[in-house]
């Protein structure tokens, strides 16, 4: 979650197209220096801790305060740590299942919400937004209490269920705007040409939504993979997702291995979000993440 805002906020980038640079130059001259300074400070504070983690993941010594030379020692230690590796596998499994589940359900919900003209439909559209504003810790505790109350043993499966519930709103919000932008005549045209209603959705509507579906899948994968709060409350004892495992490990003192894991997770998340922003461009149309990137 926290990594979203920095990667999607557009910093004044040097690689603007030529025409835009020309129109911008005049205004840039008048731009107050103090704003530039504040922006720089903002990014410095935001990235400093991450930079420290990344730097010390390459430290050749065990110290977390003194950098003693470059080495891949902690990455090797991570690769040979069976517990961490199995947690990584668990996290990947949870992310894949939660992504698939929430994209399918959220996509169906988005289609339904846009097309439903009933009062119940608009009510569902509002309720759907609640998980977005509910503090995650509340969702986490509530999920845990629900599972306990139902007598369900906490496991990887319960994490998957909670993550799907939590991610559903994101998928729906992203896809709903895309569905609303679709031309209803296109689906009618498919039916006019002999397709049944379901074939029309499958052959025409889904392909039109594909870029947005892929983009939201990548986003959800990244969100779920590094989610801690929900996972912490709903996971069983063994196996544990990576984020929970790291938290447990830190309680017994920070091992530099954690720095290496953190750096790898960071690289993975950045890669995924970059992919999510890039996918729509592959299809030559505006992205499914317009809401998030603010463009």
């Amino acid at each position, binding site marked *: 979650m926290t990594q979203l805002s920095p990667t999607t906020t557009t910093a004044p980038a040097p690689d603007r197209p030529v025409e835009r640079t020309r129109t911008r130059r005049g205004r840039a001259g008048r731009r107050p220096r103090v704003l530039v300074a504040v922006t720089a400070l903002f990014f410095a504070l935001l990235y400093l801790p991450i930079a420290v983690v990344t730097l010390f993941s390459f430290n050749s010594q065990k110290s977390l305060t003194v950098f003693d030379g470059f080495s891949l020692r902690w990455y090797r230690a991570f690769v040979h740590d069976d517990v961490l590796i199995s947690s990584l596998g668990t996290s990947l499994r949870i992310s894949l299942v939660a992504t698939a589940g929430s994209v399918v359900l959220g996509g169906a919900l988005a289609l339904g919400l846009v097309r439903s003209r009933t009062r119940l439909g608009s009510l569902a559209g509002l309720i759907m937004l609640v998980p977005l504003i509910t503090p995650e810790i509340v969702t986490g505790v509530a999920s845990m209490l629900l599972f306990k109350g139902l007598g369900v043993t906490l496991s990887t499966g319960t994490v998957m269920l909670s993550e799907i519930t939590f991610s559903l709103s994101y998928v729906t919000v992203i896809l709903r705007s895309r569905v609303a932008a679709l031309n209803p005549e296109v689906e009618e*045209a498919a039916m006019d*040409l002999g397709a049944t209603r379901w074939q029309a959705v499958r052959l025409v509507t889904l392909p039109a939504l594909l870029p947005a579906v892929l983009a939201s899948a990548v986003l959800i994968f990244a969100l779920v993979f590094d989610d801690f709060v929900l996972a912490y409350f709903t996971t069983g004892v063994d196996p544990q997702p990576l984020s929970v495992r790291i938290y447990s490990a830190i309680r017994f003192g920070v091992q530099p291995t954690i720095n290496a894991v953190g750096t790898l997770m960071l690289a993975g998340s950045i890669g995924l979000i970059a992919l999510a922003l890039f996918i729509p461009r592959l299809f030559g149309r505006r992205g499914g993440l317009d809401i998030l990137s603010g463009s």
Partner: protein
Amino acid sequence: MDATHAVRLDGVSKRFADSYAVHDLNLDIEAGRFFSLLGPSGCGKTTSLRMIGGFTDPTEGSVLLAGEDVTALPPDKRNVNTVFQSYALFDHLSIADNVAFGLKRKGVQKAEIRRRVGEMLELVQLDGFAARRPRTLSGGQRQRVALARALVNRPAVLLLDEPLAALDLKLRRQMQVELKQIQREVGITFVFVTHDQDEALTMSDRICVMNEGRVEQCGTPEDVYEHPASRFVASFMGTSNLMTGTYRDGTVTLDQGPALPVGPRTAIADGTAVSVSVRPEKVWLSDFEPGMSMQRGVIRETVYSGPTTTYLIELAPGVTLSVLEQNTARARMEDRWSGGETVEFGWRPEHCLVLA
């Protein structure tokens, strides 16, 4: 059941919430015709078309295609195809795949599909565009793809929902001619929805003028233009010079202005309030004939527009007529009337229409 009617609407109504979009519509469309539904926006023409296509269910009445009741059938079970106003092309498919869509649904053989798609693209002059995507085409080209995609299925009836509305004037004129040619070539019944009276007049075999969910008049373009059945039709089809007055003994005395001889009308009782209409091009400004209905008025405005000049002539206070004159070779610039001059003008009595 008369099978020569490609489309028959039998007492069809469509009610939305509290008002009728279409009210008790009865239409017979003969096979092979270019049939236009003409009217202002909101008159129910598109709703009528959608009921023929199966996209809207009628509240009452039945829809028959070639004598068969299809009221309860979904769009994919009807032997009609539609050209949508937005073209509604499939952006993720190539032009060839767009055109092939309907044939694939029907399970036509691959070689046959390839042949028919090729033929159809040739018909709409888009051979060479088969592999392109819809987004890379111009508006006129996309319009042709939409037409080809519908026609390739050889439907009994082709429905066209304002297909030319998004094109610029020049392209629209060109497409009007092309559409008409294509219709003659393929011999398929076209049901064409438009709000553009010029378009309807130039393309149609028959026009049905609609207003507020009801049919005002059905007939040939000439019928509808020369003999409008109502005030609405007269004013919707071109400029009409509508004037209000009272009928008595073969003359209509205008509310403000002179009495106009209109000939005896047995259908109209003396003392009835009526409208009279004279088309701008039916008014003469020179070379009068004996027996014409002659009037005098003051030129208020002269509007030159290339091949024609339009004069606004004040017949009486508050009654201004629009008069159209051809700018023929004989008509010289300095012969044209200018503002403030009093002129004599006239029309043949039969060109003065009385509308109840």
